[in-house]
């Protein structure tokens, strides 16, 4: 069994968040380009996948992968050997799922184990930005702006931020810089900490707020921010 994951929808935020959680466990998890080369599949039912074709392919495989099926409806599991996860998926459930199927721990890969975990402390805690990083340093202005704006307003975990649609390499760069510059708070991701500042109730938004977000939307439609 290897640490390679195949998915028919690598752009899915739920799939990316799933991978981000796995990489918290071990940096050696990686994508497989072909389903036959992977020991693990992650299928997001929201991505318009041909599930019938997948299940029959799966049934014909000699050595079968472990399959995580992401779906909102409990009754929608297409194959009894697969495991249903309801997004947003709790990281503890993913870790349990992996441990049950792979008692040996992290996937055995030939590369020497790099010391990623201590070098990327933001992948573990609850994150909050104290100030804006300098946006001029990052080339994707839209992803940068959305992620930083939300992290200034309320704390979130690394996996949650990935679900906002930012690419992991850009996010890692922003967080690494912010940490080095003293702009990032990392705290214990306990449920109590997560509940400190719940997101603002949409109904409580002021008129000024509404017109501000309206303007932001207009500008996004008008200018392709590079």
């Amino acid at each position, binding site marked *: 069994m290897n640490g390679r994951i195949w998915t028919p929808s690598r752009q899915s935020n739920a799939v990316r968040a799933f991978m981000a959680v796995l990489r918290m466990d071990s940096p050696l998890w990686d994508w497989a380009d072909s389903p036959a080369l992977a020991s693990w599949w992650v299928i997001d039912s929201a991505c318009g996948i041909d599930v019938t074709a997948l299940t029959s392919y799966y049934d014909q495989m000699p050595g079968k992968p472990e399959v995580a099926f992401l779906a909102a409806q409990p009754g929608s599991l297409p194959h009894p050997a697969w495991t249903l996860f309801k997004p947003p998926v709790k990281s503890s459930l993913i870790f349990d799922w992996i441990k049950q199927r792979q008692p040996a721990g992290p996937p055995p890969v030939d590369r020497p184990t790099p010391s990623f975990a201590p070098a990327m402390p933001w992948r573990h805690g609850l994150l909050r930005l104290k100030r804006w990083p300098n946006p*001029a*340093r990052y080339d994707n202005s839209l992803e940068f702006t959305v992620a930083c*704006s939300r992290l200034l307003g309320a704390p979130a975990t690394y996996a949650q931020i990935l679900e906002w649609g930012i690419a992991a390499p850009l996010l890692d760069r922003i967080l690494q810089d912010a940490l080095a510059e003293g702009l990032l708070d990392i705290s214990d991701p306990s449920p109590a900490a997560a509940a400190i500042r719940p997101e603002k109730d949409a109904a409580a938004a002021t008129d000024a707020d509404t017109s501000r977000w309206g303007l932001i939307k207009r500008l996004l439609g008008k200018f392709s921010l590079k």
Partner: protein
Amino acid sequence: MNIVLGHRATQQVVFAGPFGVGKTTALRAVSDIPVSNTDELSSELSQLKNSLGKTTTTVGFDYGEWNFSDGARVGLIGLPSQERFSAMWDMLLPKSSAVVLWLYGNSDDALADCRFWLEALTQRQAVTRLAVALTRLPFDVSEETLAPFRHLTSLYHPLAPVLTADPRQPASVMQAIMVALSTPDAAPFPPPATPPAQQGKSNDEF
């Protein structure tokens, strides 16, 4: 404000800062219409000039616009830099949706300029959606350069962005506007211990 722009634009983005820093340049970089000085828009603004009185008729502010497909317009305004035209600031700033404060990042006076403008903006309720944009610096300038501006700005709005930007480049100007607009309200965070007006006088810790 409605006197001037009422039927044209419902929201305004304002550029402030010292003379020559690049406000007009930035306006030109992103405006959909040719940027004009209000002195040239006599018919459109005669009403305003009348309302402000004779002394102000010799100065105008720069005016540009974004036009959207549904017919909506957003005004882009470059403030006159000289304090003697502060009647214009009084009129234009309080209703702004966002303010970009442009500063000479390469000048020894930049922090003093920054404090002066932050005071002027605060007095006119214009720091809620603010970005402080430092010109004439490399984009990847060191954090040590930005830190004193971040600190000073935090006395007026704890989350306001400080960035490096080039008024000649549309993407850079848009970035400054976007981060100003996207800054969350400061309310959830504890306010600064001392009110900004008092802090401004005696802050020597940079």
